[in-house]
């Protein structure tokens, strides 16, 4: 990186965090620290919700995913607007009117203390596992691309997050998220512009999309019905709706965002903004990956983007370079409308893909940053690194803040020390934030060999979200179901999900549907056995 890149990186990061801390000055109570005093308007909440999802993983991994597998991953988000509408109709007014700090606090009002405790623990396990993955994403990639120390990158990133999260609470997080989202969009658009600009002169923007399409990378809609296919219209709409319902309706890292709203209307508008903006944003990021594919059709590159693994597979390079030249030539012929060029292009592309697969290395997470490092002009590299680091930081800050909130409100205040001064809980919240931040730094060291990071995070979430969604569905829609039936239902739901994971090939997007269905069915059956219809 050049001096200009370092200057851009440090100035961008410095401005974002100084602004966030300045906006959050004066927090001195748990209500202000954990819920921003319920004073937020819709637009910082909306951008904060989007930023929490748009982690470094989104930038690094989604572009690589499109390069390797095409744009069909966008279908994963098709259920999100449906879920947002359902949550706006049910969860938002219920949580607001209940006056709770956490979603799980509501479960005690509806069921009992043990149900609240069980779901809180499930959340702490699930989110606790994911936070390490989120923190490890920039470290493992920046280590390989720029040669930075993995430990130093993880520790420095983690410590910065802990400092501003512990100091400013959720308001600091929300306002840093706003800046981060704007920088992220700017960085992605700049990367797209540079990739298009660097294409050969005889390849237009639309030619570039056609070439990506010829390699089946422009496939944002696939309508095949296949239970084992991760991303198609049906898994996106049905599985995606359930996953988004669980994420936005039951996951404290999201619920806490819209609980900071000054009214039900403000909270609803923040979620509906996401319903409208999320799919176009993911489409744009995936589109960058598809365009990068075309860029590399003409730009020679090694078999692997993972530079430290490259030397072991150097014997493949001559064959790969020959196939690359053949593919570039066929791509030009295809654009010029020559017959049979498409078949030649696809044959050469398949050969290159087979050579990459034969290495046994999954390096999709390195594709985007390799492009940034080698082809972006001075200054823009610093901005893109800032995008990745701030994306990681805002996701982690939201996660450790929610982990701290559940630890303090649902565990400490409920089961360990119920009656203390508010100032005590405020200090404990700061300490809990510190604890979860250090925990994230430690676990990030173990999350480095998980393949595509975005899939790893979604997979982890799907193991637990079905059970959580099931119990909240019971709470909202089945007033006759009691606490014991709901508790047994959650246990049965989690057993079903883990069975599906370890004994079947069913795609993880369906785990939420399965888990939720098993929770509801089991609870209704227990309730029916306990209270036969004749006794009601």
């Amino acid at each position, binding site marked *: 990186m050049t001096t200009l890149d370092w200057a851009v990186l440090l100035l961008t990061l410095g401005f974002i965090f100084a602004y966030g801390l300045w906006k959050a000055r004066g927090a001195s109570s748990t209500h202000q620290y954990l819920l921003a005093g319920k004073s937020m308007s819709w637009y910082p909440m909306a951008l904060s919700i989007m930023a929490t999802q748009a982690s470094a993983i989104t930038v690094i991994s989604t572009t690589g995913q499109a390069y390797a597998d095409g744009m069909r991953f966008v279908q994963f988000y098709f259920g999100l*607007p449906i879920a947002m509408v359902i949550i706006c109709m049910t969860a938002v007014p219920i949580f607001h009117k209940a006056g709770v700090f956490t979603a799980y606090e509501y479960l005690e009002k509806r069921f009992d203390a043990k149900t609240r405790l069980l779901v809180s623990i499930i959340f702490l396990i699930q989110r606790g596992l994911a936070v390490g993955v989120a923190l490890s994403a920039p470290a493992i990639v920046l280590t390989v691309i720029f040669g930075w120390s993995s430990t130093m990158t993880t520790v420095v990133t983690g410590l910065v997050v802990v400092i501003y999260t512990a100091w400013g609470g959720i308001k600091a997080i929300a306002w840093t998220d706003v800046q981060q989202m704007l920088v992220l969009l700017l960085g992605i658009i700049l990367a797209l512009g540079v990739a298009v600009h660097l294409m050969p002169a005889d390849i237009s923007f639309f030619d570039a999309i056609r070439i990506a399409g010829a390699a089946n990378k422009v496939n944002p809609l696939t309508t095949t019905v296949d239970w084992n296919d991760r991303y198609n219209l049906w898994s996106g709409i049905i599985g995606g709706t359930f996953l988004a319902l669980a994420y936005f309706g039951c996951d404290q890292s999201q619920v806490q965002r819209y609980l900071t709203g000054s009214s039900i209307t403000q909270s609803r508008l923040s979620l509906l903004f996401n319903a409208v903006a999320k799919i176009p944003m993911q489409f744009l990021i995936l589109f960058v990956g598809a365009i990068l594919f075309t860029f590399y059709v003409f730009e020679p590159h090694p078999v692997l983007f993972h530079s430290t693994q490259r030397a072991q597979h150097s014997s493949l390079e001559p064959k790969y370079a020959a196939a690359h030249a053949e593919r570039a030539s066929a791509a030009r012929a295809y654009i010029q409308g020559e017959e049979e060029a498409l078949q030649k292009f696809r044959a050469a592309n398949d050969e290159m893909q087979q050579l990459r697969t034969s290495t046994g290395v999954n390096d999709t997470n390195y594709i985007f940053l390799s492009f940034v490092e080698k082809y972006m002009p001075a200054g823009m590299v610093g901005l893109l690194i800032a995008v990745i680091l701030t994306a990681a930081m805002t996701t982690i800050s939201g996660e450790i803040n929610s982990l701290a909130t559940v630890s303090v409100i649902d565990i400490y205040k409920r089961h360990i020390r119920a009656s203390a001064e508010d100032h005590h809980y405020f200090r404990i919240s700061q300490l809990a934030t510190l604890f979860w931040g250090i925990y994230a730094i430690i676990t990030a060291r173990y999350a480095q060999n998980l393949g595509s990071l975005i899939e790893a995070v979604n997979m982890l979430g799907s193991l637990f979200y079905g059970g959580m969604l099931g119990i909240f569905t019971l709470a909202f829609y089945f007033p006759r179901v009691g606490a014991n039936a709901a508790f047994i239902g959650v246990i049965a739901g989690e057993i079903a999900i883990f069975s599906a994971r370890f004994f079947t090939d069913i795609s993880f997007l369906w785990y939420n549907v399965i888990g939720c269905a098993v929770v509801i069915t089991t609870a209704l059956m227990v309730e029916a056995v306990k209270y036969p219809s004749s006794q009601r």
Partner: protein
Amino acid sequence: MTEEKPPFLGSWTRVYTAVLLYLAGLIAFCGVFGRIFTP
């Protein structure tokens, strides 16, 4: 806390319907986009 009307379209039902129609439009766009550029 009072439940207010949305700042546009007059009722929440209309807002939700507009969001779902927008989703249908996005899915249709994805289908058309793929068909145009994939041989």
